[in-house]
């Protein structure tokens, strides 16, 4: 199972922001969409970073002027990106091992989605549940 099948039933585009925007704008976007991270993209829509609630809180703890800073200044830069063909299992491993909670997915250079650790855990659980539910349906069928 690859991560394309994880994106298939998730609504459209991930929410993005440009690095030169202010943290204030980032916070507004997070609040409006009720999400925890924004993908930071350049003019070609290529991911260059990620900014999370955590990044902002961490900065706020040491800097009263956090809202005036730019997204580019406080975002996490070394983002691990995925491709649709990535196996679910290996993405899950990388996320736990490197303690990352979001992986932007890029297809032919274009941002096509984002998977969160929650998505990955749910997909793994559904895979396991599938086997169990098949058996249960068989048992139900046999009990005539």
């Amino acid at each position: 199972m690859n991560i394309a099948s994880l994106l298939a039933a998730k609504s459209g585009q991930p929410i993005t922001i440009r690095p030169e925007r202010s943290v204030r704008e980032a916070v507004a976007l997070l609040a409006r969409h009720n999400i925890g991270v924004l993908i930071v993209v350049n003019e070609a829509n290529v991911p260059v970073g990620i900014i999370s609630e955590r990044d902002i809180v961490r900065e706020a703890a040491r800097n009263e002027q956090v809202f005036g800073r730019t997204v580019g200044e406080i975002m996490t830069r070394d983002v691990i990106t995925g491709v649709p063909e990535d196996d679910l299992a290996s993405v899950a491993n990388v996320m736990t091992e490197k303690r990352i909670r979001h992986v932007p997915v890029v297809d032919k250079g274009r941002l096509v989605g984002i998977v969160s650790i929650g998505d990955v855990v749910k997909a793994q659980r559904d895979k396991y549940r599938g086997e169990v539910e098949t058996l249960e349906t068989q048992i139900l069928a046999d009990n005539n």
Partner: protein
Amino acid sequence: MAQPGTDAQPLRVAIIGSGPAAFYAAEHLLKREGLVVEIDMFDRLPTPYGLVRGGVAPDHQKIKSVAAAFDKVAADPRFRFYGYVEFGKDVTVADLREHYHQMVYATGAQTDRRMGIPGEDLQGSHPATEFVAWYNGHPDYQDCRFDLQQERVAVVGVGNVAVDVARILCRTPEELAATDISDQALDALRQSRIKEVYMLGRRGPAQAAFTNPEIKELGELAGADITVLPEEVELDPLSREALEKSQDRATLKKVELLHGYALRKPGGKPRRLILRFLVSPVELLGNAAGQVVGMRLVKNELRATPAGTLQPKPTDRFEELPVGLVFRSVGYKGVPLPGVPFNESWGVILNDKGRVLDPDSHRPVVGEYCTGWIKRGPTGVIGTNKPDAAETVTCMIEDFGQGLLLCPSRPEAAAAEALIRQRQPNYISYAAWLRLNELETARGRAGGRPRVKFTRVEEMLAALGRSEGA
């Protein structure tokens, strides 16, 4: 007008398709406490169950028995089946909007993915989807022909469908005769001259998509010896490292099974099943008559993507594999339904958790939902569709609670039936299907088979005492 969801006005739901996802969705809806719902389920085929009838291999009867669980859902008095009624042809979105408060698309993945290599369309190169539908008696595929007089066959891909295809090709006539494989396929496979079946994986043993019970079964065939090349089953350093780290039990077991096969000595069975790894077809080779005579394979190495997946990378080493028949089993693919937003990138209906989305605004389209393979893509076993359908039904109930429903002008069962009777006078009710089912099983009884399928729509109609156009 009465509040929908009550005895006075049941919530009217149309479900398009009658595979596992459709039945699980129906079950979740019918079980809902405090909601009066009526379900009309449509299928373009006269017969229900989707891939349980037309996909699951005939030598896996135990799995096919899940159909009996679906019959229990269908026995609910608030459930109706309209078989042989195609969405997009006999009825349209616009028709259904006039008759139902909500509709659910559960149409599965109706076609195959392509490999995109030269020679793919030569004679003798077929998608596995067609072969599977043919041997399972799907009415649309009964005119397909497969040249089983060839001695060497390649199956591209190492998913569970590839395993099904390879196994059916390796089964003895006696084994097949005890199944509900179509009569036509049984005859053709009886005459088969196939000696060698190759299964081709583009990655290594640790990345193979097949599951362990399926690969174990391949080692227990009465009529075929399985082999794996020792050099291809040895894990490369990257795979070994990944496996050591993850300690994934299923993968460890899979690799162990395959190692066992590499050590086996041929047992003198009439056929050989050869599992190959780390090879990709780059071209199918044809003769002057346009018939496949072989394929050119490139050897692959594995490389890690940034997210840790080991992907095949072609080397400059090639080989030619002489084969006269090729089955491409590289995945199924969804097809768009007329008037329903589609996500071309993933080959599914454009949706969020089962809510169909408007392609421009990305907002939910009121009253339209999807579930199963047409929602999440062509992966997962039968039971995977149960939680999937539950997620969709949860969205439907939430929206219902918010009053987000269609406003049909004729929300009565009789009005829908009148429309369908007008569009498809020969529609098949569940009672009619159960009669067909009895006839099929009766036909099988004499030969000690689970059933002998009707494989043509005319045959089915005739068995019910009807005729096309009547």
